[in-house]
């Protein structure tokens, strides 16, 4: 299972089909409120997964299993994929989920309707067409052996083509029409989203614990930003389950009898991307010195309290297939080495301990999107890192910026930072292409947060993405990771977690396997 661990009293779904308590409202406390119910951000994916069904699903063993598509196969030349749909599913507006609907959605993704969906399939999918009512054929430009696996990510939830065509973007944002087990009944901004069960739902994915409609009548998806309040609300019974548990609460909640779920998100972990385009980190030695100066492991251990795993690998996390242990082992704490490298690079220790070169101080701007990509534990870890870096003569200015500023694109340009921290979830190492594709004038890649343009690296990654032999593919992915680690373009800090704490009255909440979001279809309330 890609990184899915079930801590504490983890139970597989209690016996399927038991109609013991079909109904009730499940109250769930989430930490962030996205601008739309669907979209390219993981927070949107978590939501849309309750409402929009996808073609395929990922099971606990990392296998792609049927959902709306009962069957799929790759052509011999690996350039054509054919999906066969099950008959019967409908969108909640009544439109049937047929081949044309799938084609329309693929076109919608390709056109940028969902930024993340586009970066995953855009470079590979040429076109899609409906062969008949239940058969879709997708033509690729290059082999893309993990195409189906990628489609298990919640960004690929299907929407009613009628809704896409006829409703405004705002309406689809607020209340997308999918074929999922729930529909959006109401969105009280700042407060909650109410998801109502679709009683005629009968096309759950193959890995679902129960088939048929969801067992709870309603999910009250509350937004509780403050972690303390979230945990408190769980303890007081105001909510049945919460997302994102603080590390220091983990063992307490465990001993209090809450069911805890921990999922290490595959894809890019919480890593430091150095701005290689300008400033001190344009110099590889300075990047390496910075990396050596940090006792990342100790800081993460202290703050993470055994819950948050240390991650040495920058490009991908330990739960990602083709993870390179070797890349992860680079740059263990060695302040002496760091000092030597800085000396080498010409940064002399100044009067106040900060190194200087040509009159410029070794000043590092380190912005991070607090409460968006970085939670409170993350913020503490960053402060710990800062302390270590300053030991060897860096002057690190932490610039936490709020979620809405992040949404508005603050601190994203090459002039805005020297080092940045962030994650990018994905189901596999294909994320490398998203993050490391060159940022060129005619094909810009704003996701290349190191501002590092290297045709060789890109070529390796592209080769890996299209490698049909799984072992060969993994080797290429590892090679790319080590390449990045060698040059200290990005170093890992800790793995991003998707954690859930579930109260004693709820059974059957599970975490989706591609990204770790909660799945409420199987959940039910017990007395």
């Amino acid at each position: 299972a890609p990184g899915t661990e079930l801590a504490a009293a983890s139970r597989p779904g209690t016996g399927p089909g038991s109609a013991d308590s079909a109904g009730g409202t499940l109250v769930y406390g989430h930490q962030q409120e996205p601008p739309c119910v669907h979209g390219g951000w993981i927070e949107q994916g978590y939501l849309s997964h309750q409402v929009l069904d996808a073609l395929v699903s990922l099971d606990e063993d990392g296998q792609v299993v049927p959902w709306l598509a009962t069957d799929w196969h790759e052509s011999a030349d690996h350039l054509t994929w054919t999906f066969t749909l099950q008959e019967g599913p409908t969108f909640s507006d009544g439109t049937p989920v047929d081949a044309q609907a799938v084609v329309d959605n693929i076109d919608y993704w390709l056109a940028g309707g969902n930024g993340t969906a586009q970066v995953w399939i855009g470079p590979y999918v040429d076109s899609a067409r409906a062969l008949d009512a239940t058969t879709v054929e997708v033509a690729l430009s290059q082999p893309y052996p993990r195409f189906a696996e990628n489609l298990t990510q919640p960004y690929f939830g299907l929407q009613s083509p009628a809704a896409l065509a006829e409703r405004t973007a705002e309406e689809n944002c607020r209340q997308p029409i999918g074929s999922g087990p729930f529909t959006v009944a109401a969105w009280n901004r700042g407060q909650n989203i109410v998801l109502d069960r679709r009683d005629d739902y009968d096309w759950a994915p193959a890995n679902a614990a129960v088939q048929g409609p969801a067992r709870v009548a309603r999910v009250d998806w509350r937004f509780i930003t403050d972690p303390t309040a979230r945990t408190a609300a769980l303890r007081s019974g105001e909510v049945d389950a919460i997302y994102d548990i603080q590390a220091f609460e983990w063992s307490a909640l465990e001993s209090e009898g809450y069911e805890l779920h921990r999922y290490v998100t595959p894809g890019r972990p919480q890593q430091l991307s150095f701005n290689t385009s300008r400033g001190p980190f344009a110099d590889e030695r300075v990047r390496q010195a910075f990396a050596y100066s940090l006792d990342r492991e100790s800081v993460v251990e202290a703050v993470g309290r055994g819950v948050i795993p240390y991650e040495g690998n920058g490009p991908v996390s330990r739960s990602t297939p083709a993870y390179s242990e070797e890349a992860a082992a680079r740059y263990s704490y060695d302040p002496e080495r760091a000092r030597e490298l800085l000396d080498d690079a010409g940064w002399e220790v100044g009067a106040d301990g900060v190194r200087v070169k040509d009159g410029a101080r070794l000043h590092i701007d380190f912005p991070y999107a607090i409460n968006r990509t970085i939670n409170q534990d993350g913020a503490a870890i960053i402060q710990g890192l800062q302390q270590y870096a300053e030991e060897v003569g860096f002057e690190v200015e932490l610039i936490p910026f709020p979620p809405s500023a992040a949404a508005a694109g603050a601190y994203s340009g090459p002039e805005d930072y020297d080092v940045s921290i962030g994650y990018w979830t994905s189901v596999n190492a294909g994320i490398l292409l998203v993050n490391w594709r060159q940022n060129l004038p005619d094909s810009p890649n704003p996701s290349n947060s190191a501002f590092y343009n290297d045709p060789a690296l890109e070529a390796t990654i592209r080769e890996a993405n299209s490698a049909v032999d799984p072992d060969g593919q993994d080797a290429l992915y590892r090679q790319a990771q080590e390449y990045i680690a060698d040059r200290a373009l990005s170093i890992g800090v800790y793995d991003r977690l998707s954690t859930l704490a579930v109260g004693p009255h709820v059974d059957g909440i599970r975490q989706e396997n591609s990204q770790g979001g909660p799945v409420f279809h199987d959940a039910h309330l017990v007395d």
Partner: protein
Amino acid sequence: MTPTSSTDTHPAGTTDPGRRRGALPDGTGPAAGRLGSRPSRPRTGPARLVTWTRRLGRWPGRLAAALLVMWGAVTVAFLAQLAQPGDRAAVILNLRTGQTQERTPAELAPVNAEYGFDAPPFEQYLSYLGGLLRGDLGVSYQQHRPVWDMIAEQLGATVALSLTALALAWVLMVAWVALTAGRSPRVRGLASTVEVFAASVPQYWLGVLLLLVFALELGWVPVVGGSGPAALVLPALTLAIPLAGFLGQATRAEFELALSRPFVLSARVRGMGDLGVRLRHVLRHAAIPPLTLSGWALGATVSGAVIVESVFNRNGIGRVLVSAIEAQDLPVATGIIVLIAALYVLVNLAVDALAALIDPRLKA
């Protein structure tokens, strides 16, 4: 916030000694007097007119002043937003796509055209003002919804919070001041220290502590109760305690002054008990300064709401405002500012009317 001194107790522009004096000489003035050599002739013509415009004059004048304040507020808000760093079109694009990145001019051009950002600022300003006059606050960059809808959606929660807090503050303050004012020096010292302390307490800190004690430890009130009345208690209390301390300071000075007035003794010698005098006579006299401050305080609770709403996970204008300002969602931010200014103006008119009810001498 701030004016911890009770010196400034006059309602805006009503009983302002200097101003009144300054305003008198014109109008009736020397000109009318010099017209005739016999000043005792019956008043006709100009004087009559003056009287009439005077009689009518109060309300139009105030309304004009109110409009002026609102216009000023709109302008300040507009300018502040213009002065913000970053390109508004880029912001809009990022908000639309959920991305956080820089944009190329080619990408920005259509957005600029769509929102009229390519027009000179003054033209933008005029068109914004025009929109306001039509009651159109624009459309949110973030949510692509009319600002009016967004505000309307959140207004109720904040207004309920503000009003509850204000009412609670008054209850706390009146009880506290009425019980402690004019007692022995030690009690007075303690009481006013408590007031100053209450007024000095950071709101969010208080909120967090209340949350910790009453919601987390004792479990008396819900942590995230949504919009029910139980969930209103702690947030309102959080706003009310500092406010009560603040109002208390202004009231106490006036209360003690009123207590020392002869009419208090005169009520006592009539056989009235101490508490009776305090509540029936003195309180009314001491009520004007805190009442005047309440107009401002209601505005200030909006400041408080920004904080309290995030401590208690309440929805409301405050949170919308903060996120709009952070995200440079200009129409939303300006819309809320206009609303707050309007609220301020309205409340102050109401306060003036109320003050005149409490102290009929103010009608003059």
